[in-house]
C-alpha cells in the first residue's frame, strides 16, 4: 500500500457525506461458510442488516436458516468468513460483542426458577447494580406484556406466556442487535398474531436492529423491512420485503412467496417493454417486463391479481387488462372469507383468489365458464439469469 491511498480514500468518502462518517451496517457477513461433514449447510457471499432495520431470513426447512442464525448471533464459529457488527470485526470468542446482542429461540428454554430470575439472568452476568436490574426487569416484563408474572414459577406459565418471558429476557439487555429464531412458530394461531403485533411494536419503538429467522412468509412480510430468501444454504434473493414478494427472481422464490401459477414460455415480441410470451400453442401472455425476444422465461401470476367474471354469451365486460382468457373452473376451495379457484385455460392451469361473496354472486362452481383477466403490469417474468444472486 502506498502512502497516497489513504488520502484519496479520505477525500472520496468524506466529500459526499457532509454530515459525517457513513454509518456502517449493524451486521455484515462476508463469505460465510459452515459445513457439517460433506454438506455445506451455509454458504453465503454477502449479507447485511442496516441499523434499525428488521431483516427476515426466510426459507424452507433445511435451508440452513438456523445454522446461519447461530453463526450471526456468534453462538457458533463458521468454517470461514467474516462477520462485523457496526463495522467492527467480531467472532464467537468475542464475549463483549455477544453481550451487545440478545437471542430468542423457537422454544422459550426458560431456566428453572422464577420468571424474575430468568429475565435478570443476562443483567446479573453483566454485573449491573441491583436497583438497576430490578427496574429494567420490570420495564422489560411490562414491554413484553407479562408484567404480572415476575414472581411466577416458570413451570406454571402457558406456552404464550413463556415465549413472552423469553422475549423479555432478551429485551431487558437492550441489545444493539436482537436475534429471533422462529419466535412465534410454536404458538397457537391466535396467540401467534398477537405475539407478532407486539413484537413489531416493541422492535419499532426501541429502534433495535433485528434478525428474524422464519419459514413463514406471512410473518416475514408482516414484520420485516427486508427479506433474505435461502435455499440449500445459499441466498436466493435479498431485498426489500415488497420487492421479493412482487418481483421474485426465479420460480423457487415465486413459489415460496405464494405464486402458484408459473408457466414456462418464450418471448415472441417485445415493444417498449411490453413482452408477448407464448405459453402454449394457443396461449399468449402480455407482460410489462424486461426480457429479450426468444428468451425462455417463467410467467408468474399472483392469485390475487386475477380478476374473474362470468363468461356470458354477449359482450365481454369492459376492462383495461391486456390479458383476457376464458376457461373452465376446475375446482373451488372456500376457506374463511376467501376462495381459491383453479381454472383450466385450454390446457394450462391458473390459480385465482376471490372473495367468498363473489363465488356465490358469480355462481362459480366446477365446470362453470369464466373469463379471467390480468393486467400486463401484474404479470412477472422469471428469468434464469445468474446475475444479482446475492
Amino acid at each position, binding site marked *: 500500500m502506498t502512502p497516497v491511498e489513504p488520502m484519496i480514500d479520505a477525500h472520496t468518502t468524506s466529500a459526499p457525506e457532509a454530515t459525517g462518517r457513513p454509518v456502517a451496517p449493524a451486521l455484515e457477513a462476508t463469505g460465510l461458510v459452515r459445513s457439517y461433514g460433506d454438506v455445506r449447510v451455509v454458504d453465503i457471499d454477502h449479507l447485511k442488516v442496516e441499523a434499525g432495520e428488521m431483516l427476515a431470513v426466510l426459507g424452507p426447512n433445511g435451508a440452513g436458516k438456523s445454522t446461519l442464525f*447461530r453463526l450471526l*448471533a456468534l*453462538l457458533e464459529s463458521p468454517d470461514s468468513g467474516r462477520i462485523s457488527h457496526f463495522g467492527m470485526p467480531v467472532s464467537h470468542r468475542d*464475549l463483549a460483542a*455477544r*453481550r451487545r*446482542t*440478545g*437471542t430468542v*429461540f423457537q*422454544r*422459550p*428454554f*426458560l*431456566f*428453572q426458577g422464577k420468571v424474575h430470575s430468568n429475565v435478570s*439472568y*443476562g443483567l446479573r*452476568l*453483566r454485573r449491573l447494580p441491583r436497583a438497576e436490574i430490578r427496574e429494567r426487569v420490570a420495564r422489560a416484563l411490562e414491554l413484553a406484556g407479562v408484567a404480572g408474572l415476575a414472581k411466577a414459577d*416458570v*413451570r406454571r*406459565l402457558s*406456552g404464550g406466556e*413463556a415465549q413472552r418471558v423469553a422475549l423479555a*429476557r*432478551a429485551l431487558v*439487555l437492550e441489545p444493539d442487535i436482537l*436475534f429471533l429464531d422462529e419466535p412465534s412458530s*410454536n404458538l397457537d394461531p391466535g396467540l401467534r398474531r398477537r405475539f407478532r403485533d407486539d413484537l413489531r411494536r416493541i422492535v419499532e419503538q426501541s429502534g433495535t436492529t433485528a434478525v428474524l429467522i422464519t419459514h413463514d412468509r406471512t410473518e416475514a412480510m408482516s414484520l420485516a423491512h427486508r427479506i433474505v430468501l435461502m435455499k440449500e444454504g445459499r441466498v436466493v434473493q435479498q431485498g426489500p420485503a415488497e420487492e421479493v414478494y412482487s418481483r421474485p427472481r426465479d420460480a423457487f422464490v415465486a413459489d415460496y412467496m405464494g405464486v402458484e401459477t408459473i408457466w414456462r414460455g418464450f418471448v415472441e415480441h417485445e415493444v417498449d417493454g411490453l413482452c408477448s410470451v407464448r405459453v402454449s400453442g394457443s396461449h399468449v401472455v402480455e407482460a410489462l417486463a424486461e426480457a429479450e425476444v426468444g428468451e425462455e422465461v417463467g410467467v408468474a401470476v399472483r392469485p390475487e391479481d386475477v380478476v374473474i367474471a362470468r363468461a356470458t354469451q354477449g359482450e365481454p365486460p369492459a376492462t383495461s387488462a391486456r390479458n383476457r382468457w376464458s376457461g373452465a373452473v376446475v375446482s373451488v376451495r372456500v376457506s374463511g372469507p376467501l376462495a381459491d379457484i383453479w381454472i383450466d385455460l385450454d390446457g394450462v392451469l391458473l390459480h385465482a383468489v376471490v372473495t367468498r361473496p363473489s363465488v356465490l354472486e358469480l355462481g362459480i362452481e366446477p365446470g362453470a365458464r369464466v373469463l379471467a383477466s390480468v393486467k400486463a403490469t401484474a404479470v412477472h417474468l422469471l428469468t434464469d439469469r445468474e446475475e444479482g444472486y446475492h
Partner: protein
Amino acid sequence: MEIFTQSIAEAVRLVASFDRYVFQVMGLSLKVSGSAVLIGLVIGLPLGVWLGLSRFRGRAILVALVNTGLGLPPVVVGLFVMMMISRKGPLGFLSLLYTPPAMVIAQVILATPYITAITMSAVGSIPREVRLQALGLGASRIQALMVVVKEARLSIMTAVIAGFGAVISEVGAVMMVGGNISAGGENKTRVMTTAIVQEARMGNFETAMAFGLILLAMAFAAVFLMTRLQGGPRSGWVKS
C-alpha cells in the same frame, strides 16, 4: 423364628441406646463413604459434563469405559488398590494399607463411574439450545456450562445418592484394603458391612442385625429421596 425376633429386638435396643461400638462403626462408614462420594463428585462431575456435551474421536471408548466402571466388582477394586499400596507396591511408601484413606481410595474408584455416567446422561438430556440460549444472553463458555449443570442438578443429585448407596453397602473393597480392624475399644477400619460379616461369624446376630437395620434404613431413605427427586415436576423448557 425366635432368632429373628430376638435379634431384631436387641438390634433396636442397641441403636436406641446409642451403643458406643455401633455408633463408632457407623460413623466411620459415613465418613469413608461420604468422603469417597465427595471426591468422586469432584472427578466425576466435570468428566460427566465433558463426556455428555462434547463430541470427539474416542469418546465412545471413554463412555464404554465409564459404563464398564458401573459393574466393577468391589473385591477386585480392593485387590487392585491393595497391590498398589502394599509395601511392595508402587505407592507402598505412603503406608496406607489398613487405614481409612486406603478405604476412601478404593471407594472413590467405585463411586466415580456412577457419578460420571449419570451426570453424562443428565447433561446430555438437556436440550443443547439451553447452552446456546445462555450464550446468547451473554454467558461465557463456563457460565453457559454452569447453566446446563444447574438445569441437570436433580439428576446429578440422583447420581450422588446412587454412588453413595453403592459404596456404603459394598464389603469387598473395604475388607481388602481396610482389614476390618477394631481393637481395644478403638475402631480403626471397621465399617458396617465388614462388621456384619465379623459379628455374624462370631455368633453376635443381634449386633450384626443392628448394622443391617441401619443399612436398610439408609437404603430406604436413599431410594425414597431419589424417587422424590425424579418424580418431581419437570423444568420449564420441557413444555413448549
